[in-house]
């Protein structure tokens, strides 16, 4: 095969750009009258950009006071869960082109946790529930001198719930959590599930005991909002149902 006379076009095709409007829920605790308000920003974005890129543009070029969390920017750290067009998602995993960008994109803080500033919420209650379920390996006896072995099947049993990045998208999409902030919430149950069904762990009874609380798994009404919200694709509602079933079999 010989090269054709026409010189091949090696430059990448130009990525199309478009203007997109972000309608952001803002709150400044230091303002004279600290009340939440809406503010719109219009920026030029690439067709391949994510919501996070557009927000960076706003923060870096238009209004440096816009406040939000992000760290990895690649869906790993779980910092930037927010309510985008009414749905909890990670700003860094949501492409603008998937959101009908000819209309303003509505961005709000996740619901059910106190807003500290703009899109930053107080995550303490969320992590307090996480800590309550003892998210660490519990064993008895002497520490073995080698790895704790586990078959692929035993590992597969809880594989889904190991994927959690603690972004709180699930817990803050739950209507029970919105009205009753005491509820442990899906994320804590997911992380309890990860150990309850781990063959190496011996703390299942203690964890089930914790979640048998009146603010535990029985508050769940199978709304499935959490499963829809999870950016890691974890079957959250199924995990909660498995924990419920484990409690019922234990009680009977």
């Amino acid at each position, binding site marked *: 095969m010989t090269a054709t006379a026409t010189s091949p076009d090696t430059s990448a095709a130009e990525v199309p750009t478009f203007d997109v409007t972000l309608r952001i829920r803002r709150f400044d605790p230091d303002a004279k009258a600290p009340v939440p308000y809406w503010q719109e920003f219009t920026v030029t974005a690439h067709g391949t950009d994510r919501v996070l890129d557009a927000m960076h543009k706003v923060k870096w070029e238009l209004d440096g006071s816009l406040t939000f969390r992000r760290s990895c920017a690649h869906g790993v750290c779980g910092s930037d869960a927010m309510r985008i067009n009414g749905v909890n998602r990670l700003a860094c995993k949501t492409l603008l082109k998937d959101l009908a960008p000819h209309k303003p994109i509505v961005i709000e803080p996740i619901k059910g946790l106190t807003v500290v500033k703009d899109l930053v919420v107080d995550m303490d209650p969320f992590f307090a529930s996480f800590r309550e379920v003892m998210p660490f390996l519990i064993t008895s006896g002497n520490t073995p001198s080698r790895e704790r072995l586990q078959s692929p099947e035993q590992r597969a049993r809880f594989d889904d719930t190991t994927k959690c990045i603690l972004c709180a998208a699930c817990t803050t999409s739950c209507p029970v959590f919105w009205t009753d902030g005491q509820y442990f919430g899906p994320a804590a149950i997911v992380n309890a599930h990860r150990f309850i069904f781990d063959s190496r762990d011996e703390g299942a009874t203690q964890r089930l005991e914790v979640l*048998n609380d009146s603010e535990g798994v029985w508050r769940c009404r199978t709304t499935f909002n959490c499963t829809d919200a999870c950016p890691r694709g974890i079957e959250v509602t199924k995990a909660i149902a498995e924990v419920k079933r484990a409690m019922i079999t234990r009680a009977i």
Partner: protein
Amino acid sequence: MAASTPTLAAPRSPRRARRPNTELYSWVFMRASGALLLILIFVHLFTNLVSGGGVSAIDFGFVAGKWAKPVWQVWDLLILWLAMIHGANGLRTIINDYATRTGTRLTLMGLLAVAFAVVVVLGTLVIFTFSPCPPGAPADLLPSFCTAG
């Protein structure tokens, strides 16, 4: 001593002893009673509205005739009790969802308990003390087994 060091509970400090399984049983009950109610209610609707003379046949005599048979007394009693416990327990859940202040919650729970007691007691009394042949009533309105007028 660093003032900012958070105090963390020892990982395996003893936790509150066994929690009662109240919410667990309540959850199971909602599903069990729901399944039973499905049968009870649809048989109830069918016998009252479809079978025999259908809707047009419902009158005092029809109801009185049904409650003269122990089967329907027990059937309706089960619907009454199960639906009331199921419904009241469901409302208890909703109150726990929305009432954040203890005062509000206790008030609503109290109202719920009173409403529950009134309906259950009244309903049970009616089912068992119902008189199918009130004296002096016109015979054409009464069930066929009422002889004396």
